[in-house]
């Protein structure tokens, strides 16, 4: 069995470099399809880099290792981002990147547990992840496991009432092994999340449900790392949430400026342009 603790995997590559690789892999997958949820993948890459190369305990060659930290993706359309992270982490082979969203691929457009090693749940129908995380948190405690359950949600997903049922339950059960990660990119299918169904003041809401709350710039790797550490190290018997303010399409400025970034229309010639822009900003 290979590495277990994430700290061992940092090797000689920085988290910023990992995030850069995740972005590049996501762009390449998007190019395969000619479209995709690139904005989310570019925006959340820093959080995923910290998750998979600093915080999570897992074994790349044994995705169902009993003692692993569980990472639940309730937002199925972010699969492209998680695939990129799982490929970078060595859970999925690099060559499968070419199959993203194609027939009979293990990497369907929306994340499904039965298809992909490392994909813990079937998301896509939003509002499922946190409730499942509550059940897994209760189950892990029942087994005496020290593993954490992470759940990556999005700000738009917070419109789903089931998320708040789960939030209330996690607070009630004092699930200190549960860490919710909210990607606040203020963009959903019909426009800005705050203009669609505003979840602000978001920190106060989680706080009121009994959670320990942090809110950080999700594209500031050091801030993200500190928040992950604080969430894991907290001694209080409470569930933890980190709200990450992120920028859609982060790292590719001409895409960041698009008005509609929930599902980015990228012209054929723009993929190379995007890769070139990214390549020029490769971290040292």
């Amino acid at each position, binding site marked *: 069995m290979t590495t277990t603790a994430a700290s061992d995997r940092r090797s000689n590559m920085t988290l910023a470099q990992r995030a850069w690789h995740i972005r590049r892999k996501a762009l390449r997958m998007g190019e395969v399809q000619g479209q995709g949820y690139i904005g989310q993948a570019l925006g959340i890459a820093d959080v995923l880099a910290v998750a998979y190369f600093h915080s999570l305990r897992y074994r790349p060659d044994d995705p169902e290792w009993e003692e692993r930290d569980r990472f639940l993706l309730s937002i199925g359309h972010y699969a492209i981002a998680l695939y990129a992270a799982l490929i970078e982490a060595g859970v999925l082979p690099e060559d499968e990147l070419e199959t993203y969203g194609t027939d009979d691929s293990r990497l369907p457009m929306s994340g499904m547990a039965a298809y992909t090693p490392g994909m813990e749940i079937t998301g896509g*129908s939003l509002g*499922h992840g946190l409730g*499942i995380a509550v*059940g*897994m948190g209760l*189950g892990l405690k029942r*087994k005496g496991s020290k593993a954490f359950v992470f759940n990556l949600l999005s700000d738009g997903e917070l419109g789903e009432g089931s998320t708040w*049922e789960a939030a209330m339950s996690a607070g009630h059960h004092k699930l200190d092994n549960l860490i919710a990660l909210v990607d606040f990119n203020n963009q959903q299918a019909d426009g800005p999340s705050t203009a669609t169904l505003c979840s602000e003041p978001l920190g106060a809401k989680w706080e009121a449900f009994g959670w320990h709350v942090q809110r950080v710039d999700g594209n500031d790797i050091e801030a993200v790392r500190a928040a992950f550490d604080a969430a894991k190290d907290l001694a209080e018997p409470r569930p933890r949430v980190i709200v990450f303010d992120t920028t859609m399409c982060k790292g590719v400025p001409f895409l960041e400026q698009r008005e509609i970034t929930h599902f980015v229309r990228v012209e054929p010639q723009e993929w190379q342009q995007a890769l070139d822009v990214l390549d020029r900003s490769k971290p040292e």
Partner: protein
Amino acid sequence: MSGTATPPKKRLTTSAMIASLAEAGQETRPAPFGHALVRVAESRTDIVGLSADLAKYTDLHVFAKAYPDRFYQMGMAEQLLMSAAAGMAREGFTPVATTYAVFASRRAYDFICMAIAEEKLNVKIACALPGLTTGYGPSHQATEDLAIMRAMPNLVVIDPCDALDVEQATEAMTAYCGPVYMRLLRGQVPLVLDRYDYRFELGKAKLLKGGKDVLVIASGFMTMRALAAAEQLEADGIGMAVLHSPTIKPLDEATILAEAGRGGRLVVTAENHSITGGLGEAIAGVLMRAGVHPSAFRQIALPDAFLDAGALPTLHDRYGISTEAVARRIREWL
């Protein structure tokens, strides 16, 4: 006032939430599901119970009392109930989640579908007040739950008849690995099938009695009503066979086809469910696909409507699922 005595006011029949299906003098057993689950859980430490603020009304309180540390109160949150059950199943436990059938089938459908059934997780969903078993009106009457749940891939659907059936179905569903939806009869549940050399087997229909003129294929407590109606009809020389099909999905097609294919008999389906999408239409589909054509095919079921509030005996008679109504209609059809 004219001085004539006011006649004594007739006491009105009322609806009651805890309405029993038992008829006067009928033998019953208390909380068969709760007690059976406790017995099963004795040797199965993987079994945990979850409820959404209805443990007392789904007989899960018996389990909660026996195994307090294995009982999880999830509050009045059915979407969470199903999601959390999925999460616990993912961690290797066998969650038994209980609520009312309306809340599971209507409110939590997507959560059962995507978090449990699509993943074939080992979750058991036991739901009280199926069909017309409460007089509280459409908010509590799950008259379409079989149609809804039957349409869900991977989900086994069970509709037991009496206390014995509930006990044995509880054993069988916990022995089976995969998602199951069971319609639950709770409280003082009639005991009938002990007189028929019956044993519940998942996916099997059982012929409880033979008869030359009519075959009734029934599920749930309508099997009990069919058996009682058969006694009345037999007093008139009408031979009525009763085939009990407690597993709605997967249906025991072989037994149903064999019995319905024995020519010359009127075939009647009887269910405590809307005429739309339940046992009757499922069996009609089986017969049509196999090219089996009984001399006549009829359905006893609830109407495709939101039903009245009222007392159960009144409503069962009004909607044609009382013993008398069953016997009367079969006489008319013969």
